[in-house]
């Protein structure tokens, strides 16, 4: 059976990094937690073997990193492609963190309510408390 043009191959065991729970206060004052998870290890392959005129082009593959972020009943997931896990993890933290800050602002939520200053930059969501 011929391979498809693109396909994703998972390792035997998915590698989930996290979750990280991030406290927030909703509009009624209730304290809740958002969460971020990252799944790493899958590889996406592609080939030009069956494309007329491109048979000589060598296929390639890239590592994929997928994250899920949830807060206040909203959820977003996204997959990045890259060459190494550390680069992908940083991308996932960046985009997940930005989504949390933007969503909290739009929905009137307070992220990390125990902080002295509001959270405006995504690194604040991952740095250890001082």
């Amino acid at each position, binding site marked *: 059976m011929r391979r498809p043009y693109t396909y994703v191959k998972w390792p035997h065991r998915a590698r989930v990094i*996290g979750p*990280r729970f991030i406290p927030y206060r909703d509009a009624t004052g209730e304290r809740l937690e958002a969460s971020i998870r990252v799944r790493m290890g899958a590889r996406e392959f592609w080939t030009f073997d069956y494309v007329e005129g491109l048979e000589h082009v060598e296929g390639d593959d890239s590592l994929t990193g997928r994250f899920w972020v949830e807060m206040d009943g909203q959820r977003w997931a996204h997959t990045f492609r890259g060459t190494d896990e550390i680069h992908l993890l940083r991308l996932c933290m960046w985009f997940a963190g930005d989504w949390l800050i933007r969503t909290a602002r739009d929905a009137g939520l307070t992220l990390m309510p125990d902080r002295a200053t509001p959270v405006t930059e995504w690194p604040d969501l991952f740095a250890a408390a001082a």
Partner: protein
Amino acid sequence: MTTAVEDLVLGPREISYRNISRSNAAAANDDEEFDEEGSLLMMLRTLGEDAVIGWADIELDGHTTRLETRGEDELQVTFALIQLSGAWLIETARARGLTLFAWGQKPVTEPMHVFVL
């Protein structure tokens, strides 16, 4: 009964750098063949419900170090290791006269920016 916990290995990540004094400075301006590679490997180990230990092994131009930190969860520890590793790489490159990611648009001066490229 205790459960054996596997270490979570992240990387290795290649760290591109250029040693201008070693290569021909004039030729190095536009020739990527002068770029060399350092490396970064991270390991995480869960110690308990609210404790994760992580360490990063880094090599740059023959200079090596291990940086270690602890935190509440894997993403917090990963973030801390990225900050620590980025700072070490920038400082080591500066001390040894190296240019990190010489093909980048701007010199890397912030630890977190080391991993954008």
